[in-house]
């Protein structure tokens, strides 16, 4: 697992970690059953607060991506495509709706949001 913290990135540190772990699962670098470092170890290595790492792990557990159990290292859990694609699409739509509402509240126009979406989709294809 490779985690890097970018201080110039406006996103919260825990979110940077969550996104990087998900990205590595998507690329196949992290596989089901792979272990993750303990909260304390990761926080020490990155020079950040333990609560930040814990928040990232909890977020990942809530999304069913990692398994967390007392006294054991966290492990990668979900790798398979969801069986119910309609439910997955509904969840993503709900999340996008929230993000798009935030974007509109920040003063972005629908065309600008569309442009961001297109750019991100292209980036994902090239990775």
């Amino acid at each position, binding site marked *: 697992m490779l985690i890097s913290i970018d201080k110039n990135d406006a996103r919260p540190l825990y979110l940077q970690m969550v996104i990087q772990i998900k990205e590595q699962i998507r690329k196949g670098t992290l596989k089901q059953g792979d272990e993750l470092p303990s909260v304390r*170890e990761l926080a020490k290595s990155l020079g950040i607060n333990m609560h930040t790492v814990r928040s990232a792990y909890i977020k990942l557990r809530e999304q069913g991506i990692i398994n967390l159990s007392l006294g054991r290292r966290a492990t990668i859990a979900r790798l398979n495509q969801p069986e119910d694609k309609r439910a997955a699409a509904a969840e993503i739509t709900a999340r996008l709706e929230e993000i798009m509402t935030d974007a509109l509240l920040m003063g972005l126009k629908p065309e600008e949001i569309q442009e961001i979406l297109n750019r991100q989709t292209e980036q994902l294809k090239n990775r």
Partner: protein
Amino acid sequence: MKIKLLHPLWTHVPAVAALIFIIVYTIAMGPLPSVAPTHWDFHGNINSYGSPNLGFGITVGLSVLFIGISVLFDELWARQEKKKKFNWFSLFDELVVGFLVGSYTGYLQYLKSGDSTFPFPWVLILIITGTLLILARILDVWRPYRPNPNKVVFSDTTTLEKELAEKIKSGGSFVHWESQNPWWLSLLSIGLTIIMLAAAVVAWFAIAWVSLVVAVAGLSMLFIYGGLQTTVTRQEIAVGFGILGLKVLRLKTDEIESIELVEFSPIADFGGYGIRWNGQIMAYYMRGSRGIKITTIKGKKYIIGSDRPEELYAVAQAAVNKSK
């Protein structure tokens, strides 16, 4: 990717042939008596009776086990062969099977003769074992060398190195962390602990202090649970071991002279898995045969095994370059 077996098994043919011979020979001998001598003192006098089938079971069972172990070692060896080289481990089964078959053949002849003393068949054992070893060596000369089709070439790490260098410049922190914790290590750790604790309970009724030593030794096996963990940060490359993550290697990045991607042979180069020393290089790995080789400014050499050697190399390289 489907893993192809490489070793043509040639060197194990004599052991298998000897095993077939003893099965056929036993059948040809006809039914054995239900009770026969099974143990003798140093002078060859009988001191125990039992079923002669026990000897047959031990001979066949142990032969199959040792042929299996020898085939496994040979396959691991063949996967790492860069050029054809003789593997002494491949004679392991001939040695054991030769001894077992020689002993049991002598035992069958003894049963047939009806003598009261059993002269241990050293000469027969030497002849059978020697013949098997010579045949296996000849067959190894004939066996073809097959380059490993399972071999994976290292992928390019330039992009990742550049990406990390940028992050380092911007003052960000990073960590590469991975564990090598194969299932057999957990099994070994827990299994040995249970066996030794059970032995300690039994020993408690005989000698208490031996029981305590065995119990402590058994519990100490739990410390290997968890395997090896490699961590690379801006400051250091470290390898932790076991459930407590005790640091068995700690190298400051500014003390490192060079890093290279390497492929090694766990069996031929280091004689197994774990934390190994071959007289020149200290190695840390629990599985696989790829990793990075680190040379320090003082000239010390280390190998750290990895499931993702390219990533480990790129991160370690970026961390070391930062110090230069």
